[in-house]
């Protein structure tokens, strides 16, 4: 562990601290960021033991005695310093069939999806994910079972399960129903607790559990 002294500044964020260290104290320090306004999801780190988006985390809120511990995100291999390899995290989105599958007649017909329809409401509640990996780093099941698809990928799958225009539902349900899928989740809600966008992957995963159970009862899985 390295220790650095950084001068305090008004409205200072954790990302500001790290940037100061790199620019003024240790130019070899590696970390990742892009937007600095909570949109891109690239700046997440472990701050005082909790996964957070650092560009929107104020130092004043988390530094108790004027000290913070900053580590890379958990559950992902460290590339260097505060930079982690997110490849597996995003590969799992693909494995959970997180890509939209257009239907044959998509070009001909407009799908009418009333904003108040139950499916749209479910999808809306989960759609604002920025792919930051905070939930994934917080999840114990990811640590216990490296194959577990994880909260973000499953949350994404749930938005598509609720997309009436999507034509890949049977394959998607099959993909999320396996050993490493939604049924591995223990509902301990670490993902929901730390998601900076206040999403609730636990609820999305619970939705997948119900959807896969229904499909299994109908003999479709």
């Amino acid at each position, binding site marked *: 562990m390295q220790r650095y002294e950084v001068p305090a500044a008004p409205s200072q964020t954790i990302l500001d601290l790290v940037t100061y260290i790199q620019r003024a104290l240790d130019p070899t320090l590696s970390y990742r960021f892009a937007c600095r306004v909570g949109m891109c999801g690239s700046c997440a780190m472990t701050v*005082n033991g909790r996964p957070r988006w650092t560009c929107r985390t104020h130092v004043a809120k988390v530094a108790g005695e004027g000290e913070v511990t900053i580590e890379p995100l958990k559950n992902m291999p460290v590339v260097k310093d505060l930079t982690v390899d997110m490849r597996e995290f995003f590969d799992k989105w693909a494995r959970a069939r997180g890509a939209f599958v257009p239907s044959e007649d998509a070009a001909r017909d407009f799908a009418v999806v009333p904003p108040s329809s139950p499916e749209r409401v479910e999808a809306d509640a989960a759609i604002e994910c920025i792919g930051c990996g905070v939930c994934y780093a917080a999840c114990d099941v990811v640590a216990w079972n490296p194959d577990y698809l994880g909260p973000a990928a499953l949350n994404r799958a749930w938005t598509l399960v609720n997309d009436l225009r999507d034509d890949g539902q049977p394959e998607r349900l099959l993909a999320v129903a396996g050993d490493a899928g939604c049924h591995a989740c223990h509902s301990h809600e670490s993902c929901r607790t730390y998601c900076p966008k206040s999403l609730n992957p636990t609820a999305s995963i619970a939705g997948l559990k119900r959807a896969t159970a229904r499909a299994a009862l109908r003999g479709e899985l």
Partner: protein
Amino acid sequence: MSALAASSFRRRTHPAYVAFLVHRLSGLMLALFLPLHFWALGQAIEGEARLESFLRWTDNPLTKFAELGLVVLLAAHLGGGLRLLFIELVGWRDWQSRAIAFAFALGLAFGLLFLLNLGA
């Protein structure tokens, strides 16, 4: 390194995680203690002076304490189970934290009720 050691555990200090732990641990402890409980019960009511010995046995403060523990464990486990059912079958969202509080309250209420009964 103590800051780093603490950090691996700090992300687990939120109510839902505690509820998950209580559910797991109470389940484990029930699995361990219920057989013991039934065995002790069986022992107490066997033999000649059945009723007599049983009554004496239940008067034992240690028995009372153990039984109180069992009731609290049962209630806590029931509460944890209800929480899971609400999240996973009913699809509770914003109610989840309330579900946790409810589970704990239920556990405590059962325990205290039992305690009051014992005192009476």
